[in-house]
């Protein structure tokens, strides 16, 4: 029999109401409150109930999460449920916080239920499965039924359908899918075109997501005192590609010492080349400085316009690389740059 753990707040965990919302996290090796309903509906046994006050989770999040993860360290479980949180904002955020942490730490499916108005939906729908739920506890049975049905599918290894069919909030995770009726793309395209021409409603298969911007870093005040690093996604590496960076869908990056170089020598000199498979390599192989301008930076360094060109340049391949991998590599490179006291970066991409 597979095992499940359920997370509830102080109210549904039968501790009490708003007056005990500061209740510290606890774990019980039994089915408390709504956990009993889960146990009835699941093809798994609910072995533990985790209970935490909403205010405790809200105000001392890190402590709460750490405590609960510590509770679960020695618990054997296959699936984790949190909520349902209905329209309760703090409860929804709590379910999201702990759900996300459990997912990351133990890599088990995490499922919750929240009303669309619950702020937890927007914040955590990318991290865990969240199903639309009712406004209040009157919908308890319906909401738990929905998420346990889905949980059972996962537990039984059934094929999962797209979000729109299973019913959970979309997570921004897109996979290819063979249409049941196999309607070929040309039919879908003509159909969409005729609808668009006739002013009828149509549904794009790729809705354009909103742009996600980061805060703009301040300008450098005095370049002549600044160490600048070159980073590239153009796949420039030593000819033997010592870090075995992939030509596409890269998961690796390398850093290469240029402290003794005035420029990058080329492939013919057995120095640097590109391993990027997404563009014609001829020009970069003949002169890698067209991608990583070590020569120009050296000149500016000599002229005193910049303080120093960082001793290493960093390289990976941009083509086909997942955003997740690119973000991880970006973080790792940023860490290196911080450790090396670099202040600014020129990133060249191909």
């Amino acid at each position, binding site marked *: 029999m597979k095992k499940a753990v359920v997370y509830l707040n102080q109210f549904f965990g039968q501790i009490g109401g708003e007056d005990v919302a500061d209740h510290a996290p606890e774990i019980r090796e039994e089915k408390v409150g709504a956990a009993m309903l889960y146990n009835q509906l699941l093809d798994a046994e609910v072995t533990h109930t985790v209970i935490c006050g909403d205010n405790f989770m809200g105000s001392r999040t890190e402590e709460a999460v750490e405590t609960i993860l510590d509770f679960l360290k020695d618990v054997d479980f296959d699936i984790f449920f949190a909520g349902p949180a209905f329209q309760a904002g703090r409860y929804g955020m709590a379910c999201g916080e702990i759900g996300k942490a459990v997912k990351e730490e133990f890599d088990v499916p995490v499922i919750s239920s929240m009303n669309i108005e619950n702020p937890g939906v927007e914040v955590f729908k990318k991290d865990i499965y969240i199903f639309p739920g009712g406004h209040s506890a009157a919908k308890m049975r319906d909401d738990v039924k929905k998420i346990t049905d889905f949980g059972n599918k996962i537990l039984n290894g059934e094929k999962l359908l797209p979000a729109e069919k299973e019913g959970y909030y979309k997570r921004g995770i897109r996979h290819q899918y063979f249409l049941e009726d196999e309607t070929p793309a040309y039919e879908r395209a003509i159909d969409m075109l005729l609808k668009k021409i006739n002013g009828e409603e149509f549904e794009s298969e790729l809705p354009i997501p909103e*742009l*996600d*911007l*980061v*805060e*703009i*870093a*301040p*300008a*450098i*005040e005095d*370049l002549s005192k*600044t160490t*600048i690093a070159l*980073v590239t*996604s*153009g796949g420039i590496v030593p000819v033997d590609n010592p870090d075995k960076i992939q030509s596409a869908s890269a998961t690796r990056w390398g850093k290469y010492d240029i402290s003794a170089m005035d420029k990058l020598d080329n492939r013919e000199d057995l120095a640097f080349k590109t391993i990027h498979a*997404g*563009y*014609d*390599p*001829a*020009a*970069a192989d*003949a*002169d890698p*400085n*067209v*991608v990583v*301008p070590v*020569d*120009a*930076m050296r*000149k*500016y360094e000599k002229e005193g*316009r*910049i303080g120093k060109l960082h001793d290493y340049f960093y390289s*990976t391949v*941009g083509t086909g690389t997942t955003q997740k991998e*690119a*973000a991880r*590599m*970006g*973080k790792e*490179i*940023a*860490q290196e*740059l*911080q450790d090396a006291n*670099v*202040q*600014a*970066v*020129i*990133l*060249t*991409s*191909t």
Partner: protein
Amino acid sequence: MVKEIEKAGFTVVQMANLIPVAKTVGANRMVPTISIPYPLGDPSTSKEEQWELRYHRVGVALDALTTEIEEQKVFDVEI
């Protein structure tokens, strides 16, 4: 990648040919390059011309690093 570096607090300028791509991925300071396979030096031109272009555009990138901006900005190049 550019976002992670900027998030970590570095002032970063992205030199890219495909400015629409750089904008979509969220770069803030951008300097255009001349093509994808050879961002900073067209092999059909002389070595001197390639050098001048590269030196100039890297210089624009350095200017970009010292410029305060309010929103995503593409810096103009002359050659």
